[in-house]
């Protein structure tokens, strides 16, 4: 009985001290981590919807989006976070659309686990730039061996990273369909 009591006591005390120490570290770290998250979100919004001065989150067909306003307070569009499966893991990205949802204004990859040097190129400006000012009335279409065309929503795939390129396009199309109410 005495041994059991001692076992319980030691484990309880160790856990208590560890929990107290962790609570202390958490109260110091949490606000900072939160700030980093907000800063990253802000950077992404300003990047996908140039000219944004203020933004507020709102729910659209069950999806949280950021309604963005320009310098004069008029709505200039929505920044929409979206994620889905890539080649090796989840790709999360943010893209901007005009208020009428006819045009994508920009795209930024927030996180991915694609192959370095190949699929990882989806986060580079050479790929994200293809989504700036892109007409998406009929969704985005990924093309290979054909010229891209912003007026008809055609984006060409990265050489050697078709799966990652297709994943990015599919994620955006799915999010567009959802906020469009389909």
């Amino acid at each position, binding site marked *: 009985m005495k041994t059991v009591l001692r*076992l319980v006591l*030691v484990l309880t005390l160790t856990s208590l001290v*560890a929990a107290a120490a*962790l609570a202390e*570290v958490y109260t110091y770290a949490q606000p900072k981590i939160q700030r*980093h998250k907000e800063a990253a979100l802000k950077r992404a919004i300003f990047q996908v919807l140039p000219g944004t001065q203020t933004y507020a989150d709102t729910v659209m067909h069950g999806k949280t989006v950021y309604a963005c306003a320009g310098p004069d307070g008029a709505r200039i569009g929505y920044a929409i976070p979206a994620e889905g499966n890539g080649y090796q893991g989840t790709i999360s990205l943010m893209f901007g659309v005009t208020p009428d949802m006819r045009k994508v204004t920009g795209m930024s990859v927030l996180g991915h686990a694609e192959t370095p040097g190949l699929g990882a190129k989806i986060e580079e400006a050479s790929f994200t730039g293809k989504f700036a000012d892109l007409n998406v009335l009929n969704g985005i279409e990924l093309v290979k061996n054909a010229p891209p065309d912003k007026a008809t929503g055609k984006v060409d795939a990265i050489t050697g990273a078709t799966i990652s390129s297709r994943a990015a396009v599919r994620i955006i199309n799915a999010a567009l369909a959802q906020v469009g109410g389909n």
Partner: protein
Amino acid sequence: MPRHALPLSEEFLKGVWKENPILVQVLGMCPTLAVTNSAINGMAMALATSFVLINSSLFVTLLKSLIPHQVRMGTYMIIIAAFVTIADLVLAAEFPVISKALGPYVPLIVVNCIILGRAEAFASKQPVGRTLLDAMGNGLGFLMILTSLGAVREFFGFGSVFGLGLLNQWPSFHPWVVMVGPAGAFLTLGSGLGLINYLARKGGA
């Protein structure tokens, strides 16, 4: 020869070379293979691991007479898990970029065999001073190998070392992509292990 007869300098240095956690003990392979795709990632991972290793060894050795034999593993795990969580939170708060690059591998330090191995095999039996030297030696040995693995893979895969452009300044440079992928980790570690063991055998015993 009784174990404690080892000179103090040797107690520190054995983890760096003769009993190096990677080259000789072959422990902690998961972070070694997973996050050494660049020199800075390898170094950050090893520093976080060393922080946990040194602190948990210190607490284990200080508490060794109080911890009953039957629950020693559980107690060690609580101590180790607490320091891992501290390392994870501090990294996320102070170095968000590195924290994001290391991803789940920081919380996974909790199952790193080097740490529980040193706690069970050394810290739970040895005095405080020797335990600290042992933990620091093992940490340094781990740091050396992870950083150099990262540097080699980054050099071939991205053409840089610590983000400093070297090979990639050369116009016809083409990155050896496989080196920053998982296969590159096995190739580099395997060749390194083979080479070092060959040289050690040739030179020493």
